[in-house]
């Protein structure tokens, strides 16, 4: 205990990184969380190495209505999961489709979080009319059934990747704002916030440096759940024909394109469904594991 320190410490980003890894290693103690992390990691790797993994070009029509396991006659190779009605290899489309989903879903979530956190901080910390106005806006947006809201937005601004991000940000930031606001209302009464105020820190510094880091636990859990939910949304929009424009593969869109043939060729719809469900499951299990761990401390 009597170690005397006389030298300035070096700023340690390495140490912070190791700490991050260590808290991640805590996941080992929750098998649910481990399964979730594994599923997510699996799809991230698939998305990263899509060009290496996909046996065929996802958009070229090769051989229509091939059953799973059939050989490709012209080009050689096997359609492990069969082909669709236009003759595109389903496995390759699923592999490339993971890229679409893992680009748009996190992007949309990050956008929604940025807006939601800023609104929540302002509403919770400032209170008063700022809170009233922001909360009323959130109430109004949240009173729309979500999908109705998406349909109206997409109907007016059109379907594209960028517009989907805008729609998701618009529709989910009020929910995030409510969570953040609740956390801030609790945290702003802590003595360390009062200490920062009494030394004359600016509002932004108090919100971002003193309050926000202490809300990270519940927010990380919520972000995982929300990522899963955003993936569902993107899938549903694709399924309803409001998603990304064809021909690039998108899991929800794949189901939409082939669902008329589902009775005769169930493999065309079944495999994309399994893909999207497993990724969502991954995020949901991860969230559950993280919550379990955060409750232990």
């Amino acid at each position: 205990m009597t170690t005397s320190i006389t030298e300035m410490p070096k700023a340690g980003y390495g140490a912070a990184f190791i700490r991050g890894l260590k808290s991640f290693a805590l996941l080992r103690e929750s098998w649910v969380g481990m399964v979730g992390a594994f599923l997510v990691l699996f799809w991230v790797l698939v998305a990263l190495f899509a060009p290496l993994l996909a046996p065929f070009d996802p958009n070229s029509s090769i051989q229509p209505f091939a059953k799973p396991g059939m050989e490709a006659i012209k080009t050689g190779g096997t359609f492990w999961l069969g082909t669709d009605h236009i003759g595109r290899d389903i496995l390759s489309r699923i592999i490339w489709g993971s890229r679409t989903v893992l680009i748009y879903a996190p992007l949309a979530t990050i956008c929604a979080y940025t807006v939601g956190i800023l609104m929540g901080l302002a509403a919770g910390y400032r209170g008063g009319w700022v809170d009233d106005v922001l909360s009323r806006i959130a109430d109004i947006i949240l009173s729309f059934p979500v999908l109705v809201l998406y349909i109206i937005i997409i109907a007016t601004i059109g379907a594209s990747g960028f517009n989907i991000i805008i729609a998701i940000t618009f529709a989910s930031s009020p929910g995030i704002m409510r969570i953040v606001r609740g956390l801030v209302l609790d945290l702003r009464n802590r003595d360390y916030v009062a200490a920062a105020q009494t030394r004359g820190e600016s509002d932004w510094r108090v919100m971002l440096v003193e309050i926000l880091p202490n809300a990270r636990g519940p927010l990380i859990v919520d972000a995982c759940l929300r990522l899963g939910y955003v993936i569902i949304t993107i899938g549903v929009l694709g399924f309803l024909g409001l998603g990304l424009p064809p021909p690039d593969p998108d899991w929800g869109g794949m189901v939409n394109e082939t669902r008329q043939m589902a009775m005769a060729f169930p493999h065309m719809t079944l495999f994309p469904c399994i893909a999207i469900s497993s990724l969502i499951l991954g995020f949901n299990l991860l969230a559950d594991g993280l919550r379990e761990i955060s409750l232990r401390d």
Partner: protein
Amino acid sequence: MVTLIAKRFGFMVFTMIVVSLILFILLETDLTGDPAIRVLGQFSNEEQRELWREKHGYNQPMLLRYVKWLGNFATGDLGESIRFKGPVADVMLPRLWNTAILGFWTFAIMIPLSLTLGVLSGMKEGSKLDRSISVFGILTTSVPEFASAVIFSALFVFTLKWLPGTSSMSGGFEFKQLILPALVLIVYDFGYVARMTRASMAEVMTSQYIRTAILKGLPYKSVIVKHALRNALIAPFTVIMLQINWLLSGVIVVEFFFAYKGFGALILEASLNNDIALLEACAMVAVCVAVTTQTLADIGYTFLNPRIRFS
């Protein structure tokens, strides 16, 4: 209490007006594209568009149009549907009724199921039963409605051939056709409600007043029924009321998939066909239902909670 209810209703009306304004701006003004083009299509010529605008009063000032539109709306004149070539109200009402039937059966099964499972798993947090229920809940919630519709169809329709694959009810109402749509909705949503119930129950079970009740020497059944449930079911009540809002989203996917002639499929059809009057009416009805249930949830919550009721 009276002020609270009055306030809630005031806010409800306010929300509806703001929503109508948003809808009007989004769909009826040039802000997001010419409505004439939206209705007549890109390949219409300017003459046709001008005629259309003249006929539907689109050349009048915006505010006047809004007030007229809102007035018509309030008096029940919802306009003409382009797609169905008839008054919107006539198209919408039977669809709403169909969705209400679907929603009723979904809730009738889901609520008792999820409350029971939630209470059971919250009673003994961390037990095997609790773990199984919660993992199962996560599993079912992770499968989007369209995916579970595909999977159930593959199983019950394609493989087992027990149930019909579409629910268009073309030959009159048939209960059998309702099973798959309702099943998909129940499977997707029960996990969420069950988990909310579980969380609430678990929190109550660790509370000090439950300890007091146990240490008073009350029978276990009385501890659960009299002391725990009364407090633990307050939060799920609100959650369930809010599921009506969710249901209005869920039915869109399910009705579309199973070709069920309901309200959700109608919204989608209106949107895909640029049937503006129909889309506006549907959206207003949807928001109205959602806001009403939310208001009822808030009022119910205060009724259930003596801490708010008497203060």
